[in-house]
């Protein structure tokens, strides 16, 4: 059943990715021709390695776009993707499982106004691709649009995330020691630790987008994540927790201090649970710790500003552009250009350049996140926010890296201002209802504030609020904004895309905390 419900998840989606079989990059050159990304000026199309890999040339792209546009089209695109995903698991001291997958195919789309016809195929034969194009074109009933006969080539080679050594050249022998290293660090940190498991993924996506207006965009998108789960037994009780790191980064990211910190985060978050309890239930002030608390923005406002929900007037933010919606120290940005972050993207999945989109400036709502359809409807430039999970899906307006800029307060004065409340520190997932504006997020670790002081640890509480109301209740923001490096995946309409988020320390003067009384 389709659902527009939108959510953000670290653990659930994370585990989904971890269980996905993946390709071992280090072996690729033996079996399959590796795709080399040129750093020199673009070669003529027949020699382009992307063209060679997918077995296409300008003529094929033109024929496919011709088929997509044969009944008329406002826009049409062909999205080739080759993704290699590798996963490795260390459990009980050994690496006895790895998985690898190759996911390759092409998605073909015809758009007429706001109507979309879409089909995909994993079989890259002309017959299969033309058949899919015919299906997509059946959405339109007008007269043909002539396809481009040649294309302007745009190769991303983006400094945002181009790796010195791509994952395809890293063998499993280079990865295994990293897993053992993290395990060793974690195990040595507390005698109560009984088990440590480490999950590794690295991914490399090659994307070719060809559009009806004659552009071809090429990109190589790397991703990696390292996830550590610690289980400890103390006083007859067994508890576990985890920490993870993710980004569009290469193997060099995993240096000793980084791995030590990751292990320490996982151990600290686990051991503190033995002393943690539930806070009281009900409305109270919530201090959001800097970093991962950007989940607030993602749920409370980010989804509501995706232009599709506003174009259809189903978002609570539909009529709020130009209006003050938060205190004047609140500036919220959604950016595709944060280097090496999970949400970084050189151009979006419709071939539009990405940007730094200011959503709220000094408390005033500035605008939406647009894909090409909504940009056409609003007659604005697309914000480069048209993203898709894979070639199996049509693009939608999506967030990239969502964060709040520094505010005027300090963390200390924020804590001191709260008589009784909580600090929210680590999170597992969140969700929002676009129309009503209600959102939730789940706190795994946090702290009680009693009389202006951080006292005892808390755990496992859901927070619920309403987007526009919660933004009005952001009464303080500190000067310590930072991005979280966790592996967040955002879900919408059945599609997951990697995102990042960030926040300074922020006080929301009241939200409903799912605690326990008495």
């Amino acid at each position, binding site marked *: 059943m389709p659902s527009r419900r939108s959510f953000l998840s670290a653990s659930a989606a994370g585990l989904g990715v971890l269980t996905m079989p993946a390709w071992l990059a280090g072996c690729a050159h033996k079996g399959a021709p590796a795709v080399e990304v040129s750093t020199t000026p673009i070669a003529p199309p027949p020699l382009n390695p992307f063209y060679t890999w997918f077995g296409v040339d300008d003529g094929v792209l033109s024929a496919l776009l011709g088929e997509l546009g044969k009944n008329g089209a406002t826009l049409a695109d062909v999205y080739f993707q080759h993704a290699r995903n590798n996963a490795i698991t260390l459990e009980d001291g050994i690496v006895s499982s790895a998985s690898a*997958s190759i996911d390759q195919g092409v998605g073909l789309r015809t758009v007429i106004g706001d109507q979309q016809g*879409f089909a995909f195929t994993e079989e890259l034969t002309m017959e299969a691709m033309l058949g899919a194009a015919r299906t997509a074109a059946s959405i339109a009933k007008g007269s043909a649009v002539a396809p481009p006969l040649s294309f302007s080539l745009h190769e991303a080679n983006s400094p945002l995330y181009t790796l010195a050594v791509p994952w395809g050249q890293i063998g499993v022998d280079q990865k295994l020691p990293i897993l053992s290293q993290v395990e060793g660090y974690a195990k040595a940190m507390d005698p109560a630790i009984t088990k440590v498991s480490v999950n590794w993924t690295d991914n490399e996506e090659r994307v070719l987008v060809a559009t009806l207006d004659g552009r071809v965009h090429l990109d190589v998108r790397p991703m990696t994540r390292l996830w550590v789960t610690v289980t400890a037994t103390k006083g007859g009780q067994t508890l*576990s927790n985890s920490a993870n790191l993710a980004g569009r980064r290469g193997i060099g990211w995993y240096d000793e201090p980084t791995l030590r910190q990751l292990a320490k985060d996982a151990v600290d978050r686990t051991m503190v649970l033995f002393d943690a309890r539930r806070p009281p239930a009900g409305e109270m002030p919530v201090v959001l710790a800097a970093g991962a608390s950007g989940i607030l923005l993602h749920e409370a406002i980010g989804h509501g500003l995706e232009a599709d929900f506003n174009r259809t007037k189903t978002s609570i933010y539909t009529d709020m552009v130009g209006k003050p919606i938060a205190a004047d120290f609140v500036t919220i940005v959604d950016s595709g250009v944060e280097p090496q972050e999970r949400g970084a993207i050189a151009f979006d999945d419709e071939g539009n350049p990405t940007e730094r989109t200011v959503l709220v400036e000094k408390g005033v709502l500035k605008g939406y996140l647009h894909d090409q359809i909504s940009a056409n409807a609003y007659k604005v430039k697309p914000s480069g926010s048209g993203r898709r999970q894979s070639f199996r899906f049509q693009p939608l307006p999506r967030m990239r890296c969502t964060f709040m800029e520094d505010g005027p307060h300090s963390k200390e004065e924020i804590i001191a201002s709260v008589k009784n409340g909580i600090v929210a520190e680590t999170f597992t997932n969140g969700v929002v209802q676009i129309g009503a*504006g*209600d959102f*939730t997020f789940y706190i795994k670790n946090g702290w009680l504030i009693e009389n202006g002081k951080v006292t005892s640890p808390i755990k496992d*509480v859901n927070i619920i609020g309403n987007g526009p109301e919660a933004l009005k209740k952001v009464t303080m923001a500190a000067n310590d904004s930072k991005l979280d490096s966790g592996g967040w995946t955002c879900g919408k309409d059945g599609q997951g895309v990697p995102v990042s988020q960030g926040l300074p320390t922020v006080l929301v003067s009241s939200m409903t905390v799912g605690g326990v009384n008495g």
Partner: protein
Amino acid sequence: MADSELTLLAGDVVERAKRAGAAGVFATVSRRKNVELQRRDGATERLVESTSRSVSVQLYVDGRFSSQSTTDLRPDRLDGFLADAVALTRALQADPARQLTDPALYPKALPALDVLDPALVAGLTFEQQSAWVETMEAEARKSDRVISVTSNVSFDHGRSACATSNGFVGEGASTSIWPSVEVTLRDEGDKRAADGFGFGARYAADLPDPAEIGRKALAMTVARLGSKKAPTQRTTMVVDPQAAASLISRLLAPANAQAFQQGRSFLLGKQGAAIASKKLSIMDDPLLPRGFGTRPFDGEGIASVARPIVEGGVLRNIYVDTYYGRKAGLPVTSGSPSNRVVALGDKDRDRWIKDVKKGILVTSWMGGNADNNSGDFSFGIRGHIIEKGKIGAPIGEMNVTGNLVALFGTLVGVGNDPWRASSIVAPTLVFDGVQFAGA
């Protein structure tokens, strides 16, 4: 059994993997056709049609293990893929617990399943799909508060075949169809009330009338208008059948050998002990006619056998796959749930509500999570106040918090009204003294 194309391909992959150096192979070849039509506010919004296929293999090489999948089935790429897969496996560490499924657990003969609708294999025509979405939308628009109505019908036909190097070959196929409607209504101020209704079935003929789905979608959304937070309280919680599956899923999430072996389960050591009130019984039934979890064998080729998971509140069986079964010293059952069917009580939701003086009806969950070690949970909810046996005002922006074992210990009522569009077939559930957080 006819040697279909998929079965032949699975067998071919096993042979290719053996030639590449694998000692043990479990190959799966899948194909799935999916068709979807979505209509929004009077016009087709999205039309999707695609056929997907993939090959996945689990390899056992020199006592080492890996799993691999690809959608690139060109023969030269497939051989290269398998050669690389074997090389990767050799680079890992040996683990004696990594073994192919015991052949004694494979089915002697494949059971006949009732999950493949010839009408859906043939497929609905565009005109039939259009009639569905138009009728559903027309009914759902019958309110002057309508901002937007999206109606959707999708159906699929999937088939997969497995072959192993130790003598198993099996194939299965199924269909399903999912009509749904989402409605957004003008509410107070800038707020919109949004909700909807959808249903799913293995057979098109088992679906309710499309007009009925549209009417229910509108009625459920109208019921959300003016939703408010209720006060923080401890009270009776009635969980609607459509929301009950999620709670059952949370309770049984750590009922598996991996969680037990890794020490991450609040059910560890509880086999044979009470984990819920006597009212709760759950069968895992892989042969349930027309069920969404119905299967001829599981992901390891293990024959489909019905087993009690919970009986009168007592945990009887957990899910045990070959690997973690060997590691934990537990007898293998099946590593994954099929249909989990909750034993029914004797009255429906509204008759249970009649007996509730004061309480909260939960119609859907909103976010939240649970800890598999402790069973501690906290979920957002939407629903209604219950007063003097009647459903009252809509509520939202509230949380419910507790511990799963403690919560199921307070299960006082089970309905006779299961929601069937899910592999967890659960009815109304009634709990006493549950902590809600609100205003």
